[in-house]
Protein backbone atom coordinates (compact mmCIF):
# COMPACT_ATOMS: atom_id res chain seq x y z
CA UNK A 1 0.00 0.00 0.00
CA UNK A 2 2.78 2.39 0.92
CA UNK A 3 4.72 1.44 -2.20
CA UNK A 4 1.70 2.06 -4.41
CA UNK A 5 1.13 5.45 -2.78
CA UNK A 6 4.81 6.34 -3.18
CA UNK A 7 4.83 5.42 -6.87
CA UNK A 8 1.58 7.32 -7.43
CA UNK A 9 3.01 10.37 -5.69
CA UNK A 10 6.20 10.30 -7.73
CA UNK A 11 4.25 9.96 -10.98
CA UNK A 12 1.89 12.83 -10.14
CA UNK A 13 4.74 15.09 -9.07
CA UNK A 14 6.67 14.31 -12.25
CA UNK A 15 3.64 15.18 -14.37
CA UNK A 16 3.17 18.45 -12.51
CA UNK A 17 6.81 19.41 -12.86
CA UNK A 18 6.70 18.71 -16.58
CA UNK A 19 3.60 20.94 -16.84
CA UNK A 20 5.56 23.68 -15.11
CA UNK A 21 8.60 23.26 -17.35
CA UNK A 22 6.48 23.39 -20.51
CA UNK A 23 4.73 26.52 -19.23
CA UNK A 24 8.08 28.18 -18.53
CA UNK A 25 9.22 27.30 -22.03
CA UNK A 26 5.99 28.79 -23.40
CA UNK A 27 6.31 32.03 -21.44
CA UNK A 28 9.92 32.29 -22.55
CA UNK A 29 9.46 31.53 -26.25
CA UNK A 30 5.88 32.23 -27.41
CA UNK A 31 5.47 35.38 -29.52
CA UNK A 32 2.34 37.06 -28.14
CA UNK A 33 0.92 38.26 -24.81
CA UNK A 34 -2.24 36.20 -25.16
CA UNK A 35 -0.41 33.00 -26.08
CA UNK A 36 1.98 33.52 -23.16
CA UNK A 37 -1.06 33.94 -20.91
CA UNK A 38 -2.43 30.69 -22.32
CA UNK A 39 0.82 28.92 -21.38
CA UNK A 40 0.82 30.43 -17.89
CA UNK A 41 -2.68 29.44 -16.83
CA UNK A 42 -2.01 25.76 -17.51
CA UNK A 43 0.86 25.80 -15.02
CA UNK A 44 -1.24 27.67 -12.48
CA UNK A 45 -4.22 25.34 -12.56
CA UNK A 46 -2.99 21.90 -13.63
CA UNK A 47 0.71 21.89 -12.78
CA UNK A 48 0.54 23.03 -9.20
CA UNK A 49 -2.53 20.88 -8.47
CA UNK A 50 -0.68 17.78 -9.71
CA UNK A 51 2.43 18.66 -7.70
CA UNK A 52 0.44 19.21 -4.50
CA UNK A 53 -1.51 15.98 -5.03
CA UNK A 54 1.76 14.10 -5.48
CA UNK A 55 3.21 15.72 -2.38
CA UNK A 56 0.12 14.76 -0.39
CA UNK A 57 0.52 11.15 -1.57
CA UNK A 58 4.24 11.16 -0.71
CA UNK A 59 4.03 12.64 2.78
CA UNK A 60 1.03 10.47 3.62
CA UNK A 61 -0.07 12.64 6.54
CA UNK A 62 -3.48 14.18 6.76
CA UNK A 63 -2.48 17.36 8.58
CA UNK A 64 -0.42 18.62 5.64
CA UNK A 65 -3.41 18.14 3.37
CA UNK A 66 -5.09 21.35 4.53
CA UNK A 67 -2.04 23.51 3.81
CA UNK A 68 -1.49 21.96 0.40
CA UNK A 69 -5.16 22.26 -0.52
CA UNK A 70 -5.20 25.89 0.55
CA UNK A 71 -2.10 26.57 -1.59
CA UNK A 72 -3.73 24.99 -4.64
CA UNK A 73 -7.05 26.78 -4.19
CA UNK A 74 -5.36 30.14 -3.68
CA UNK A 75 -3.03 29.86 -6.67
CA UNK A 76 -5.77 28.50 -8.94
CA UNK A 77 -8.26 31.23 -7.97
CA UNK A 78 -5.73 34.04 -8.32
CA UNK A 79 -4.39 32.59 -11.57
CA UNK A 80 -7.83 32.42 -13.14
CA UNK A 81 -8.79 35.91 -11.98
CA UNK A 82 -5.51 37.56 -12.95
CA UNK A 83 -5.45 35.79 -16.32
CA UNK A 84 -8.89 37.19 -17.10
CA UNK A 85 -7.95 40.69 -15.91
CA UNK A 86 -4.63 40.79 -17.79
CA UNK A 87 -6.34 39.70 -21.00
CA UNK A 88 -9.04 42.35 -20.57
CA UNK A 89 -6.49 45.09 -19.83
CA UNK A 90 -4.44 44.03 -22.85
CA UNK A 91 -7.43 44.00 -25.18
CA UNK A 92 -8.78 47.35 -23.96
CA UNK A 93 -5.35 48.92 -24.43
CA UNK A 94 -5.21 47.84 -28.04
CA UNK A 95 -1.82 47.41 -29.65
CA UNK A 96 -0.35 50.67 -28.44
CA UNK A 97 2.77 49.33 -26.74
Amino acid at each position, binding site marked *: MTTVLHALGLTLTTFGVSF*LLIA*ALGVWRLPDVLSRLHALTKA*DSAGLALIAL*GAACLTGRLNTLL*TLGLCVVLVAL*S*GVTIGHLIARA*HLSEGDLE
Partner: protein
Amino acid sequence: MILNFLAFCTLVATLAALPRLILGPTAADRIIAAQLAGTGTVATLIVLGTADNAPALFDAALVFATLAAVSGLAFVALQRTRL
Protein backbone atom coordinates in the same frame (compact mmCIF):
# COMPACT_ATOMS: atom_id res chain seq x y z
CA MET B 1 17.01 11.58 -4.84
CA ILE B 2 14.48 11.87 -7.64
CA LEU B 3 12.59 14.44 -5.58
CA ASN B 4 15.70 16.58 -5.33
CA PHE B 5 16.01 16.41 -9.11
CA LEU B 6 12.35 17.42 -9.47
CA ALA B 7 12.93 20.37 -7.12
CA PHE B 8 15.84 21.39 -9.32
CA CYS B 9 13.57 21.18 -12.38
CA THR B 10 10.98 23.47 -10.78
CA LEU B 11 13.77 25.90 -9.92
CA VAL B 12 14.86 25.85 -13.57
CA ALA B 13 11.26 26.54 -14.63
CA THR B 14 11.12 29.47 -12.21
CA LEU B 15 14.34 30.96 -13.54
CA ALA B 16 13.43 30.35 -17.19
CA ALA B 17 10.83 33.12 -16.97
CA LEU B 18 13.50 35.61 -15.89
CA PRO B 19 14.45 36.85 -19.40
CA ARG B 20 10.80 37.57 -20.07
CA LEU B 21 10.62 39.47 -16.79
CA ILE B 22 13.57 41.66 -17.76
CA LEU B 23 13.08 42.00 -21.51
CA GLY B 24 9.30 41.62 -21.87
CA PRO B 25 8.11 44.29 -24.29
CA THR B 26 4.89 45.19 -22.49
CA ALA B 27 3.96 45.41 -18.82
CA ALA B 28 1.57 42.48 -19.25
CA ASP B 29 4.53 40.27 -20.27
CA ARG B 30 6.37 41.23 -17.11
CA ILE B 31 3.45 40.46 -14.82
CA ILE B 32 2.90 37.13 -16.60
CA ALA B 33 6.55 36.23 -15.91
CA ALA B 34 6.21 37.36 -12.29
CA GLN B 35 3.08 35.22 -11.90
CA LEU B 36 4.93 32.19 -13.28
CA ALA B 37 7.82 32.89 -10.91
CA GLY B 38 5.37 32.93 -7.98
CA THR B 39 3.80 29.64 -9.03
CA GLY B 40 7.25 28.14 -9.55
CA THR B 41 8.36 29.23 -6.09
CA VAL B 42 5.30 27.62 -4.52
CA ALA B 43 5.97 24.40 -6.47
CA THR B 44 9.66 24.41 -5.52
CA LEU B 45 8.85 24.80 -1.82
CA ILE B 46 6.25 22.02 -1.96
CA VAL B 47 8.63 19.59 -3.68
CA LEU B 48 11.50 20.53 -1.34
CA GLY B 49 9.25 20.08 1.70
CA THR B 50 8.38 16.61 0.41
CA ALA B 51 12.01 15.73 -0.32
CA ASP B 52 13.32 16.84 3.08
CA ASN B 53 10.19 15.70 4.94
CA ALA B 54 9.83 19.21 6.36
CA PRO B 55 6.16 20.29 6.43
CA ALA B 56 7.16 23.78 7.59
CA LEU B 57 8.09 24.54 3.98
CA PHE B 58 4.43 24.03 3.00
CA ASP B 59 3.53 27.00 5.21
CA ALA B 60 6.18 29.09 3.45
CA ALA B 61 4.63 28.00 0.13
CA LEU B 62 1.26 29.25 1.39
CA VAL B 63 2.79 32.65 2.15
CA PHE B 64 4.23 32.86 -1.36
CA ALA B 65 0.87 31.90 -2.89
CA THR B 66 -0.79 34.77 -1.02
CA LEU B 67 1.92 37.22 -2.11
CA ALA B 68 1.62 36.21 -5.78
CA ALA B 69 -2.15 36.74 -5.71
CA VAL B 70 -1.83 40.20 -4.16
CA SER B 71 0.92 41.32 -6.55
CA GLY B 72 -1.04 40.34 -9.64
CA LEU B 73 -4.15 42.13 -8.43
CA ALA B 74 -2.06 45.22 -7.61
CA PHE B 75 -0.76 45.29 -11.18
CA VAL B 76 -4.24 45.18 -12.67
CA ALA B 77 -5.48 47.90 -10.29
CA LEU B 78 -2.52 50.12 -11.18
CA GLN B 79 -3.17 49.69 -14.89
CA ARG B 80 -6.81 50.59 -14.41
CA THR B 81 -6.04 53.80 -12.55
CA ARG B 82 -3.48 54.79 -15.18
CA LEU B 83 -6.06 54.40 -17.94
